[in-house]
């Protein structure tokens, strides 16, 4: 039997936040133990190139296997968390799509890589328009950490000098736009809408498993334990501080406990809240670090309207979709309500846009031979846009423990309640109208447009249930991602967010994890933690 190991910090979770914490802490000489709920994927042993027809369901996937993971295909089905083993509940009329990966690296194995900074329109949103809450930090507090995370991710993009889209430490994207993208950008500009290049992490994987964990392991200061599902955090009854974690071997079901002097929690936004809510004790009867009663509340994400508009570039019809005319992508940052309240909603939305797809048979309204002919005619002529809208956090959107349902390891699951309100719906309608106007202005034929959001959670940008704040009575964490109640507990995933704008959150949560980890190491050095 292995002897109990000695370590300075226990890190729970190996994705963007946990991987960043391990990277930062071990470089500063801190000895870390990392618990990961899933196994490690071996990219050479665990995957093989196959044709769809060699799969049982021709690539369409086993019906009903992933009712809430629209991103799953038959090819990658084994990557996603099995919902039968990892259930959760939600109100009957308000489905929540919780998308999870339980493997080393977490969702960084499958993320979209979009890497936008937040600005003071988010950090100090309440100061700007009176809605929501401010963060206890501002842009200048995080900017130095963005500067350091972007090179790790090899983020490419274009600096534009816009206040709502702060410039970054980027690999300059000076690529030429196709004619269709150029036309679209000109049409957007006429309507006062800014456009830019995508800003994304580059490289073959861009994951915690190739960019963060190898460097941490190379220090000799990191030990990773896989298949360790943390059931609850344990607490010293006399001090109220966290002193370890109870966990289950995913495969055998054996129960373990590991001691810890300090814990960095990054199990993913909702899993972290679940773990804290399941960690009740005499000192923390409402869950660990929940004296405010806010833990689990203010759940939000970004609403997505996928395929807000599908258009055809007419000059590309009939097999003329050349690379000069078609191809490429871009981004439109928030442009609404920046200087004054312009519309029947607060805050704003962003778009991704791309050139070169093909409209679907359903969008064309055809079948039979006319369908085949039309599909051949419009192949590669498509221009599409997707809306990502800001969701203002509300207390009533929340998670709680459902004691009546347990996962495959006997751990009580989450009950998740999130709905979108009038503000989001009004924003989505405005986004549709603007998208159509821009496409028509570019001379494109609009085949379909809509303002129907995907269900909450489906954007995989869940945020906010352990929110930061200056007031311990109204927040769970302080400005350093540190629990107000439990000083040796830090939470460094998306659950710490106070607001999220319309920007993809991974870059920001990594910057915050780096910032919090270095703060923790400094306090340890001073003997304060």
């Amino acid at each position, binding site marked *: 039997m292995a002897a109990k190991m000695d370590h300075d910090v226990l890190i729970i979770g190996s994705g963007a936040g946990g991987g960043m914490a391990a990277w930062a802490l071990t470089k500063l000489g801190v000895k870390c133990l990392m618990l990961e709920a899933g*196994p490690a994927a071996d990219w050479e042993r665990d995957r093989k190139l196959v044709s769809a027809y060699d799969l049982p369901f021709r690539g369409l996937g086993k019906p009903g296997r992933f009712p809430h993971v629209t991103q799953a295909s038959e090819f*990658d089905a084994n990557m996603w968390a099995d919902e039968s083993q990892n259930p959760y509940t939600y109100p009957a009329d308000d489905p929540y799509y919780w998308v999870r990966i339980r493997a080393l690296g977490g969702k960084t194995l499958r993320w979209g890589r979009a890497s936008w900074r937040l600005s003071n329109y988010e950090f100090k949103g309440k100061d700007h328009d009176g809605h929501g809450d401010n963060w206890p930090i501002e842009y200048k507090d995080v900017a130095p950490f963005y500067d350091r995370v972007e090179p790790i991710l090899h983020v490419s993009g274009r600096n534009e000098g816009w206040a709502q889209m702060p410039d970054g430490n980027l690999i300059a994207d000076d690529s030429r736009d196709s004619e269709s993208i150029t036309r679209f950008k000109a049409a957007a500009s006429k309507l006062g809408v800014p456009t830019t290049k995508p800003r994304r992490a580059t490289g073959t994987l861009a994951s915690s498993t190739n960019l963060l964990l190898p460097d941490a392991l190379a220090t000799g200061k990191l030990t990773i334990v896989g298949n360790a599902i943390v059931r609850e955090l344990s607490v010293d009854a006399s001090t109220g501080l966290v002193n370890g974690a109870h966990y289950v071997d995913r495969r055998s079901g054996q129960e373990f406990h590991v001691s810890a002097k300090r814990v960095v929690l990054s199990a993913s936004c909702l899993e972290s809240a679940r773990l804290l809510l399941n960690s009740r004790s005499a000192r923390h009867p409402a869950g660990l670090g929940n004296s405010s009663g806010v833990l689990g509340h203010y759940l939000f994400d970004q609403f997505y309207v996928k395929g807000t508009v599908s258009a055809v570039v007419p000059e590309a019809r009939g097999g003329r979709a050349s690379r000069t005319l078609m191809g490429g992508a871009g981004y439109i940052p928030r442009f609404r309500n920046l200087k004054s309240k312009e519309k029947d909603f607060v805050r704003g939305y962003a778009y991704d846009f791309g050139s070169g797809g093909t409209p679907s048979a359903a969008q064309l309204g055809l079948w039979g031979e006319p369908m085949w002919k039309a599909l051949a005619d419009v192949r590669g002529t498509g221009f599409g846009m997707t809306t990502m809208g800001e969701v203002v956090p509300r207390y009533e959107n929340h998670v709680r423990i459902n004691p009546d349902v347990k996962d495959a390891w006997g751990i009580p699951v989450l009950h998740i309640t999130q709905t979108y309100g009038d503000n989001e719906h009004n924003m989505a309608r405005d986004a549709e109208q603007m998208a159509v106007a821009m496409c028509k202005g570019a001379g494109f034929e609009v085949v379909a447009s809509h303002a129907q959001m995907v269900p909450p959670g489906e954007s995989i940008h869940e945020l906010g249930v352990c929110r930061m704040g200056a007031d311990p009575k109204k927040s769970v964490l302080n400005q350093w991602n540190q629990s107000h109640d439990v000083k040796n507990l830090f939470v460094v995933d998306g659950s710490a967010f106070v607001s999220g704008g319309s920007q993809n959150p991974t870059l920001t949560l990594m910057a915050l994890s780096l910032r919090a980890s270095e703060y923790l190491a400094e306090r340890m050095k001073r003997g304060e933690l």
Partner: protein
Amino acid sequence: MRRRNLLRGAMLAPAAVAMPVAAAPQTAAPATEPIDAKIVVNAPSLTGDQRTTFFDAIELAALRALAGTLVPSFEGRPGAVEAGVPEFVDFAIAESPAARQQLWRSGLHELDAQSIKAFGVRFEKLTTDQAAKILEPLKAKWTFYGPSEPFAKFLWEARTEMLQATLNSREYAEANTGRRAAAASNYYWRSLD
């Protein structure tokens, strides 16, 4: 070895860092044997005729007719029937949740019922123009979530499923050899255990 694969060797089992609550019996690691990668083993679908198991004979006749109407063969490439889509759909629906099974079964019944009401014969006996009348709901304006009315929902799902199953078939891929469109292929992930 790639950098990220170093991680696999670096990761410990749960028992390595803490004492278990109760000791488990030790088991020997299974012996590994060499694998001859040169042996080609084909999928069961490559030979033999698939037996249908879910739909009855009348339903299957409607399903085949619908497949042939929605996704016919075209310019030398196979349509849904030639690509074995009716048999595939029978299998896929048999493996589906009960609500989807009900949607497809009642959809096929409705297809025949509307055909008999309008033209006095089942769907499989309709002319192309007559079938077009029954399939009118497919012309409705596209919406993200599709129609909610069950028959229209069935038809929309059938069009999407049958077209994609055709495009992803071995038959279509072989007919397309050398052409622009190729069969979908990607990395398949085995179970990570």
